[in-house]
């Protein structure tokens, strides 16, 4: 089943073009990773999927992005963002307690009753593989956690809203290898329930965990296909140069 279908997507910020004719399909229950050097448009691509780009007043968009066969511009934006969650590059806890961080998205849907919130918070924290570490300190500030814990808390916070798709924007760029491994492990488990789009600077990470991989360069989707194929037999010279480390 196709979750997202992107057709000839072009995006400009002011006069600078960030995406050029990007077309691809994102299958349900897969990990799709997008790799490429900085400034290649990966994050712009990701932020299109939950309409966070729309915050930029200079945005110009052409082409179509379909979420479950519906144009995302015609979906209520709050509803879209509940279905398409996002984990940011740096751990960004809100200035609230651990519990309130995870409960935030549910509360914003109007659930106020603590008896209803508590089990959902627990469930999300378990899914984010951080429950055991925080279960005794839920009322503490989220800022007291370590960087890796904060990032898993952010994952749990995203999952608490019960999305269909989770977007990861270089989620391990600020983490050490052990924390990275734990986040990757979490992502692999999440795949069973969610569709995952992962933007990463770490080529090896993409090779380790993703099903499909897209390589972007200067706003262009240079190559897109099964991760296996991209990493063993890239068709484009530029892809080969990048994944073997000969690029930029």
């Amino acid at each position, binding site marked *: 089943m196709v979750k997202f279908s992107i057709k000839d997507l072009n995006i400009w910020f002011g006069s600078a073009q960030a995406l050029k004719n990007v077309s691809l399909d994102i299958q349900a229950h897969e990990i799709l990773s997008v790799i490429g050097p900085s400034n290649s448009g990966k994050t712009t691509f990701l932020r299109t999927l*939950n309409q*966070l780009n729309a*915050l930029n*007043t200079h945005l110009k968009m052409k082409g179509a992005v379909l979420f479950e066969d519906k144009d995302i511009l015609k979906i209520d934006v*709050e*509803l879209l*963002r*509940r279905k398409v*969650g*996002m984990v*940011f590059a*740096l751990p*960004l806890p*809100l*200035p*609230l*307690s651990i519990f309130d961080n995870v409960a*935030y*998205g549910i509360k*914003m*849907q109007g659930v106020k009753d603590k008896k209803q919130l508590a089990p959902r918070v627990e469930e999300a924290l378990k899914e984010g593989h951080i429950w055991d570490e925080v279960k005794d300190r839920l009322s503490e*500030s*989220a*800022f007291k956690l370590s960087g890796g814990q904060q990032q898993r808390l*952010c994952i749990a*916070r*995203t999952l608490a*809203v019960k999305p269909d798709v989770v977007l990861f924007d270089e989620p391990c760029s600020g983490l050490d290898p052990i924390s990275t491994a734990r986040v990757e492990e979490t992502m692999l488990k999440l795949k069973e329930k969610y569709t995952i789009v992962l933007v990463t600077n770490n080529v090896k990470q993409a090779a380790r965990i993703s099903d499909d991989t897209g390589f972007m360069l200067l706003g262009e989707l240079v190559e897109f296909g099964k991760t296996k194929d991209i990493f063993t037999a890239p068709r484009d010279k530029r892809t080969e140069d990048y994944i073997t480390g000969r690029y930029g």
Partner: protein
Amino acid sequence: MKRNPHLTQKIAFFLLLMATLLIVVPVGLIVVIIIQKGLPAINWQFLTDIPRQGMRAGGIFPAIVGTAYLVGGAIIFALPIGLLAAIYLSEYSKENVLSRIIKLAIINLSGVPSVVYGLFGLALFVVFFKFGASILSGALTLGIMILPIIITSSREALESVPDSFREVSLSLGASKWQTIRHIVLPNAVPGILTGTILGLGRAAGETAPILFTVAAFYLPQLPGSIFDQVMALPYHLYVLSTQVPNVDEKTRYGTALVLLLLVLLMNLVAIIIRSKLRKNKKW
């Protein structure tokens, strides 16, 4: 000649220290002199009695109450409006020429002399709206005077909340208003309070605007409604110092001390609230 970096540094430190002292010393002197000369006048009667014998004896209670009413009224009027305007300017208005002109105009308004606000209050509230010389006219005039201060500082407080918090909140499906209400505002409260403190102090101390719109020369009774005139501390101080012969020096300085303490007390309350909120703040 080769320059000695250590010597240069020492000279620079010395100059910076001198500049700081230059500010601290006069302020300290003012406070010390006022306390020294005014403290003997402070007693229970001075604080709670009405002025007697042509203001040469008795107390200043009506003026204290009047100033409290005026400052309170000004804040009740200016804080909600100022905050809403600040939210609009910081969160909703698009960055364009018009919004930039509005922001610039508001900043400049805080530099308009208070006597001009007095004249404006007289024309608008006292004469046009027929509120007369009253607490209402005075409080509204003071409120308009401190609006720019509150708007500018609140806007800066709102804008200093990191955008990443907004993005996280939105990405979790919160609406824009929910984001402002639950994330942006709570984190901007300390800054907003700072602006309010500045406004409070200014409203309490200004003489010109209330002279035009509310202040009574001598009114030894408490106001019955917001359409009554009141005495106010800054104006009372002026009257005591220049209009009434043979007033004890300590009475004048006592009045000044009370005004100073009143502003200090209001600031203290705001500072305590702010530090309480900061303690709750988790970043």
